């Protein structure tokens, strides 16, 4: 049977992920120190795991409301009000999802008609463009540049707006660049959204992990576009537990949006997913109610590793802008005359260190590589030493 014709066009059109090829190469070797990971090196804090165990002990193994446990939604409302300064009604403006990935998917499916254009910024997390395409939308890239510290300039958005533009997708702090968006530029983008009547989907999964002050040890500023004047009514705020609370495997996220949009997303969620796993939801309540301390401890440790990485890159002569958030550094390797992929492949072959080629996150990432510093100090130090050796050979 010829299967090619059987596969839906919008799926067939999605290119094979560049990360997958690289993943196969790394898997074949056992001596690799990987800075290619996309999750915390911590397991979820024990008090959160213990809450999940307790919920199982109590026999909580059933479905929940499609929207998620009301108690969790109340915790989310309180948490979002405290950290993002936006008030959402837990009864009808919050939907608990299976990770932010699901939330992103159903937000696109709930809003897009075939041919609607969605502006998103690259370099970015790999699922934005496919999520748009699978919802029959048209992905439109606005690039961020290393010269601007990978901030999204309002001008770059403005020049991509057409009469067909329906959505604007934001992700700050950004994977893979570690960029944060300053409030001033965010306000200009909000003004554009209002002027052109766009809905904004804002993925703020890394918002707790920001680094302020000269040494990065303080929490940095994070402004949510949902909290800007006039924006709550046209924003879908996406957040979750994976990064800050180190709960990736719990697969738990949420969307906060005006009631009618939440209802539309819920329609898809109820048929595709029914609800997020109840034990994950129990763990989520514990995380939100009592997790601030452990989150801050982890954040400070990331800040220290970020400092270590930035200093070593500086000593090696590898340009790297100081990322204000997430747990990635995005150094610029253009001066070595190699493509991102060549640099990453040779680093893997010659020094057994894995980083992710920047072009895996969009064409704008070419010439850069992503190095995750959510890696144990001792391994991070060895990895940086090996990168130093590699780079000095390239320079020679």
């Amino acid at each position, binding site marked *: 049977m010829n299967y090619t014709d059987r596969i839906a066009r919008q799926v067939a059109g999605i290119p094979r992920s560049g990360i997958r090829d690289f993943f196969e190469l790394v898997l074949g070797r056992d001596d690799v120190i990987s800075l*290619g990971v*996309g999750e915390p*090196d911590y*397991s979820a804090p024990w008090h959160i795991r213990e809450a999940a165990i307790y919920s199982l002990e109590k026999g909580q193994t059933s479905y929940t409301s499609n929207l998620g446990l009301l108690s969790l939604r109340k915790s989310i409302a309180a948490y979002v009000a405290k950290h993002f300064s936006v008030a959402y009604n837990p009864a009808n403006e919050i939907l608990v999802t299976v990770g932010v990935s699901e939330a992103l998917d159903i937000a696109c499916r709930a809003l897009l008609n075939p041919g609607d254009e969605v502006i998103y910024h690259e370099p970015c*997390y790999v699922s934005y463009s496919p999520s748009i395409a699978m919802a029959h939308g048209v992905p439109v890239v606005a690039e961020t540049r290393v010269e601007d510290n990978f901030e999204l300039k309002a001008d770059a958005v403005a020049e991509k707006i057409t009469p067909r533009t329906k959505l604007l997708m934001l992700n700050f702090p950004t994977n893979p660049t570690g960029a944060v968006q300053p409030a001033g530029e965010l306000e200009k983008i909000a003004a554009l959204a209002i002027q052109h009547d766009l809905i904004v989907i804002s993925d703020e999964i890394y918002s707790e992990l920001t680094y302020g002050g000269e040494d990065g040890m303080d929490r940095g500023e994070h402004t949510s576009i949902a909290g800007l004047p006039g924006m709550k009514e046209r924003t879908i705020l996406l957040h979750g537990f994976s990064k800050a609370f180190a709960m990736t495997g719990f697969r738990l996220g949420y969307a906060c949006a005006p009631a009618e949009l939440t209802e539309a997303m819920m329609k898809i969620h109820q048929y595709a997913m029914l609800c997020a796993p109840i034990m994950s939801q129990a763990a989520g309540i514990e995380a939100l109610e009592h997790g601030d301390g452990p989150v801050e401890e982890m954040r*400070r440790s990331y800040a220290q590793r970020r*400092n270590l990485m930035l200093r070593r890159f500086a000593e090696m002569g590898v340009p790297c802008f100081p990322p204000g958030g997430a747990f990635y550094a995005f150094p610029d390797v253009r001066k070595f005359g190699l493509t991102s992929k060549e640099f990453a492949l040779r680093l893997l072959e010659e020094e057994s260190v894995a980083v*992710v080629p920047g072009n895996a996150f969009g064409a704008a990432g070419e010439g850069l590589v992503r190095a995750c510093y959510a890696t144990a100090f001792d391994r991070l130090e060895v990895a940086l030493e090996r990168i130093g050796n590699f780079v000095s050979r390239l320079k020679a």
Partner: protein
Amino acid sequence: MEALLELLQQNARLGPAQLAERLGQDEAVVAARVAELEKEKVILGYHGVIDRDKAGNHNVAAFIEVKLMPERGGGFDRLAQRIAKFDQVTSCFLMSGGYDLAVFVEGEDLREVARFVAERLSTIEGVQSTATHFQLKVYKQNGFLAEVEAEATRLPVAP
């Protein structure tokens, strides 16, 4: 607590160069600050955290609840400081609640600890009573688990 102290509390083997890299500061500044903290006795000392069972150290450890008669002027300080100075005492804390001092002691065997309690501790004027509890097994010590969790495997490359 300042970040430098947090780092040293987790791993006292970090030298000034490593500390400086993690804190984003100059090595000389960090070294001077460590020296200052040592001089001010903010940092009391450094030691490895050793699982005595695995190390083959069969010393006996005990925790003693001690009730004291407080003194006018100094409260419990004079007596507590006197008790803390014994070599057998590894830690000593003033407590709230049903007793006054928590005294942690170590000795070669049960008899040595018993002798310390009977002849040294109980005979001090002002010590009203003691209750000795022998330690049987270590599960966690100074923030370190005796049985470390196996490291979870993570995807080596993920978006």
